[in-house]
């Protein structure tokens, strides 16, 4: 965060400081957005056109209230608004295929509505979208400007690189290609996308046009003047509407079915009996109730069975899992049932989302988005300690940086899941015992309650972080 120069002590939120038309800042814990005078005409035109009201009424754009220009965090303020807060800021490289696709369709919906009122999205960044109550929500109130007939859509390239390229790569190549978004913060370059796609993708008209030919046009006209190349020709508003419609068809055509990965069948295949599952569910409910959290991160939460138990108590639960298929299954469940307060996200705990972008300030690390009231780590510790050689003390340390309370399950070596992990490797983990586990965790956590889970060999703990 960067401290703003102004009458109010404010912290400018990373990711918004590249836009001269305004920025997002926090002051006394409240989130505000300052609109600068340079953008006053566009902003006022957009508000008076009814576009904002239309988008907010349809749950497409985050609602805001006027907070008064006295709260400005920097000179040249036109207005200061207070947008409704999204419970957890997530990034496209943490979304599943379906989440990215829904975010793309939301962006196109908004673009169509904007065009119908004579406006246009001046950017089409995937970072303008967040998830609230299972649905994508556009959060950049300053993304609109008046459309001038004859002008092409200048955010076309950005839309293709932020949305279409990762969707096509995930759909046609491999769902893990979504991880490229973390490397390419301004979208996956179209020439790279084109090179990674198989030849058969040239046969799809929408991919041919928006990815392959688009990439070649960008290379061919890289340093040319558009006016010199195109002469007096222009792009009618009807053509821009056609472009958006074509992009919608291209996005809709991308599909991916979550199946066949390691974890997605885990809940049904694991070694728990139905009785033990019910016992675990009941224990988790008791422990979460005792912890009274408002916010929960369920690490390694698979398709969200225990996140849903936590959600009975907490307002906001984020369910993280490494497996894109598990996250997709979870997200589809959230959408299908209209569940609120539960956000499935992809996360590799061995390489969690770092602070990235300019000066490490544009996108927050996982840790910077915490701490939360409660961290849940069910059936997870053996994967970290045995499959990935993380000493238990370090697991305890990292979890203490993420949350104030912890519901954690210890899975002993005698458990079939741990035996499976040790099948083809030497057992170099002499401290991986229940005593060693408690010893390692008690340095940072105090054990409030522990209980064996039903007829399994596993033990569930509720711990509170010790004061540093």
């Amino acid at each position, binding site marked *: 965060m960067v401290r703003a120069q102004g009458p109010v002590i404010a912290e400018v939120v990373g990711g918004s400081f590249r836009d001269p038309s305004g920025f997002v800042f926090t002051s006394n814990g409240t989130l505000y957005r300052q609109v600068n005078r340079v953008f006053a005409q566009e902003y006022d035109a957009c508000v008076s056109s009814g576009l904002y009201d239309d988008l907010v009424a349809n749950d497409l754009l985050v609602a805001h209230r006027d907070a008064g220009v006295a709260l400005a965090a920097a000179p040249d303020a036109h207005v200061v608004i207070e947008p409704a807060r999204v419970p957890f800021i997530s990034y496209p490289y943490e979304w599943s295929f379906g989440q990215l696709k829904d975010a793309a369709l939301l962006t196109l919906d908004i673009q169509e509505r904007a065009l119908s009122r004579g406006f246009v999205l001046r950017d089409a960044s995937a970072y303008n979208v967040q998830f609230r109550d299972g649905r994508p929500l556009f959060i950049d109130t300053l993304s609109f400007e008046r459309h001038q007939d004859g002008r*092409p859509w200048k955010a076309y390239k*950005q839309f293709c690189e932020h949305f279409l390229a990762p969707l096509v790569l995930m759909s046609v190549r491999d769902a893990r290609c979504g991880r490229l978004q973390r490397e390419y913060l301004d979208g996956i370059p179209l020439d790279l996308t084109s090179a990674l796609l198989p030849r058969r993708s040239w046969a799809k008209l929408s991919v041919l046009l928006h990815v392959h030919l688009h990439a070649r046009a*960008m290379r061919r006209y*890289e340093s040319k003047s558009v006016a010199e190349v195109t002469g007096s020709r222009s*792009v*009618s508003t*009807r053509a*821009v509407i*056609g472009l958006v419609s074509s992009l919608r068809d291209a996005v809709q055509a991308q599909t991916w079915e979550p199946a066949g990965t390691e974890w997605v069948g885990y809940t049904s295949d694991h070694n728990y009996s139905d009785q033990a599952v019910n016992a675990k569910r009941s224990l988790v409910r008791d422990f979460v109730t005792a912890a009274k959290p408002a916010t929960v991160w369920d690490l390694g939460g698979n398709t969200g069975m225990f996140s849903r138990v936590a959600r009975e108590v907490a307002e906001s639960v984020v369910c993280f899992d490494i497996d894109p298929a598990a996250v997709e299954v979870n997200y589809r469940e959230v959408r299908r049932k209209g569940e609120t307060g539960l956000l499935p996200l992809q996360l590799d705990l061995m390489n969690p989302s770092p602070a990235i972008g300019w000066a490490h300030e544009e996108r927050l690390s996982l840790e910077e988005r915490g701490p939360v009231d409660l961290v849940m780590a069910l059936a997870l510790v053996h994967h970290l300690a045995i499959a990935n050689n993380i000493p238990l003390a370090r697991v305890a340390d990292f979890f203490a940086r993420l949350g104030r309370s912890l519901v954690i399950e210890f899975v002993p070596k005698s458990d079939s899941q741990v035996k499976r992990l040790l099948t083809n490797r030497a057992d170099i983990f002499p401290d991986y015992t229940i005593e060693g586990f408690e010893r390692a965790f008690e340095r940072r956590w105090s054990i409030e309650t522990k209980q064996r889970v039903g007829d399994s060999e596993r033990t569930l703990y509720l711990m509170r972080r010790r004061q540093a």
Partner: protein
Amino acid sequence: MYVDPAAGSLVIQVLIAGVLAATTMVKTARHSVIRIVRGWFGRKDQ
């Protein structure tokens, strides 16, 4: 935010503008026909 539109990205839109506009016209016309036909059979317009 201000984005770099890339010259090629603008050029390709100009090059295919005619096709895109025609597509929009066809889609609009198709919707109109569907609406009229639905009207004949007394179905409510969605």
